């Protein structure tokens, strides 16, 4: 590569990284500034005086309970989707199933249908069934949203593992279940982690489902609590940016830890952006 091209490439990358991360760094900086310095002109990137008052304020308003709810719902949804998804993914890779082609199309189609398009009838259905505004409403919905992806990645993974591996284990005296548990499943770790990460991000980051499916403050998720906080306290930017930071850390950490599997899962599979 010519030196000129190289310099342009490096400059372009730096600019791209700045545009991607700059806003988040700015939010973090704001969240540490005392209220009277937030609108300082010219703005300071590194606060000369810093404080954790905004984070403390979120806790005094009970926002940490919403943080806890978000985490609980996400973990429940991922657990359900991974369990059911792995069973189905394995069966679709290994067993003859009546109407298999249709089942596969259904899963792929469901993967692409955005939950939002059917949210309104879902709300009314949940009201009729007594599921609206309960602890299970959101985990159930999120599990349904991420399940197609879990089926898709586990199935494509199981299809690449040679059948002989299980058969060898069975010859060695394992039952089929043991063979799957001890031989096949550990090998499927990348697919399972991709599905788990995707599922966690989907559930944790959702707002529109959470704000339309539960109503009681004690059932709220973090994004909903932050929007309510904004409604009550107007533009308390320090506290709001503290909220932005705590809402961003879990999914970004998950993403950074498992990005290899997630990116791999997307590169050969397909999922909504």
């Amino acid at each position, binding site marked *: 590569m010519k030196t000129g091209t190289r310099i342009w490439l490096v400059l372009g990358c730096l600019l791209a990284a700045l545009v991607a991360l700059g806003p988040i760094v700015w939010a973090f900086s704001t969240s540490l500034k005392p209220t009277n310095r937030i609108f300082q002109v010219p703005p300071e990137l590194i606060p000369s005086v810093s404080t954790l008052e905004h984070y403390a304020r979120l806790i005094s308003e009970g926002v940490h309970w919403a943080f806890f709810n978000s985490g609980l719902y996400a973990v429940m949804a991922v657990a359900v989707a991974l369990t059911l998804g792995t069973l*189905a993914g394995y069966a679709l890779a290994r067993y003859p199933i009546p109407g298999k082609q249709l089942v596969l199309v259904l899963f792929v189609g469901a993967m692409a249908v955005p939950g939002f*398009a059917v949210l*309104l009838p879902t709300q009314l*259905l949940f009201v009729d069934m007594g599921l609206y505004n309960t602890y299970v409403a959101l985990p159930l919905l999120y599990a*349904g949203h991420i399940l197609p992806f879990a089926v898709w990645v586990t199935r494509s993974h199981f299809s690449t593992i040679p059948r002989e591996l299980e058969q060898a284990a069975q010859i060695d005296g394992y039952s089929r279940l043991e063979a799957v548990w001890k031989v096949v499943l550990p090998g499927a770790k990348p697919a399972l982690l991709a599905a788990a990460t995707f599922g966690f991000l989907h559930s944790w980051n959702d707002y529109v489902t959470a704000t339309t499916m539960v109503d009681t403050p004690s059932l709220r998720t973090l994004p909903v609590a932050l*929007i309510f906080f904004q409604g009550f306290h107007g533009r308390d930017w320090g506290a709001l940016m503290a909220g932005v930071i705590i809402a961003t850390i879990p999914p970004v950490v998950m993403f950074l830890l498992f990005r290899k599997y997630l990116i791999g899962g997307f*590169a050969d599979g397909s999922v909504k952006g």
Partner: protein
Amino acid sequence: MTTTVIETSVDSSRALHSVARKTKIVGSALVGPALILVVAINVLPAFYGFYLSLRQVFFFADEGYVGLQNYVELFRDPFAWQAVGRSLVFTFGSLAIAVPLALVSAMGIRRLGNWGSILLTVLLVPWAMSPIVVALLWKWILVPSPGGLVGAIFAAFGVPPQDLLTDPLLAMPTLILIGVWRNFAFAAIILTGGLGQIPRDLYKAAAVDGLGAWEAFRKITLPLLAPSLLIVISMLTISYFNEVQTIIGLTGGGPIRQTTTLGYLLYHTGFVELDQGRGNAIAIVMFMINMLLIALYIKILGKQPGAAA
């Protein structure tokens, strides 16, 4: 002698048959729970929505069958058509920026090797964030004051602070740019993968033949990347067409309906005004458009070697 042979063969074929049936039952039992949950959460509500769209439902109270009235009113409403137009502007405006940006990034990422995968990770951080949190964040970035980040940048160029989100002309472009900021890198993942599939020898051969960089891009990269580009375009189309959370958080459909897309109209009619019969009619229209897009998408995906269902 002969009879025994026949008997055993009948026996074994019967045994085989029952084994085949048993595996079919086991397979169905394993797929069953996932299938039931997916149908219950993703398919059933669509039918229920269609049923409700034929009824007058207001504030959770069903006031009876009204036939196609909700649809007729919807198609007669100029605001609904305006929302369709706003959806098209938002979707295609976002695509027009996101796809070229993702392509350029993917090419840069390929060239940079290890540094490229670090860059991809950095660019994906906004995608890992919650859309509504992204909206809160950008509301602060765009705050019309010289103390805000964009305000300070404007001030450096001598431009007074602008309230981009309440400006009828600028609100939509601002929303589009924030949407692209949030998820264009997702498209870059798939394009980076697609670029990796193109044999490097082709470029060497092209260089030997005296093809310039632009010609090599046009004659090798674009045609060979076409499948990945199609996937990316169809996925982003579905994603942008259904975008609602950043709109709720940033503009609430305003100013003067300039950012009221079909998705936002559905949110507002169904969940804010609680006109649920009509809301469901919008939901069904959106669902149909999505099915159309998805049918295209599956068709494209089905042509992918190795990725077919």
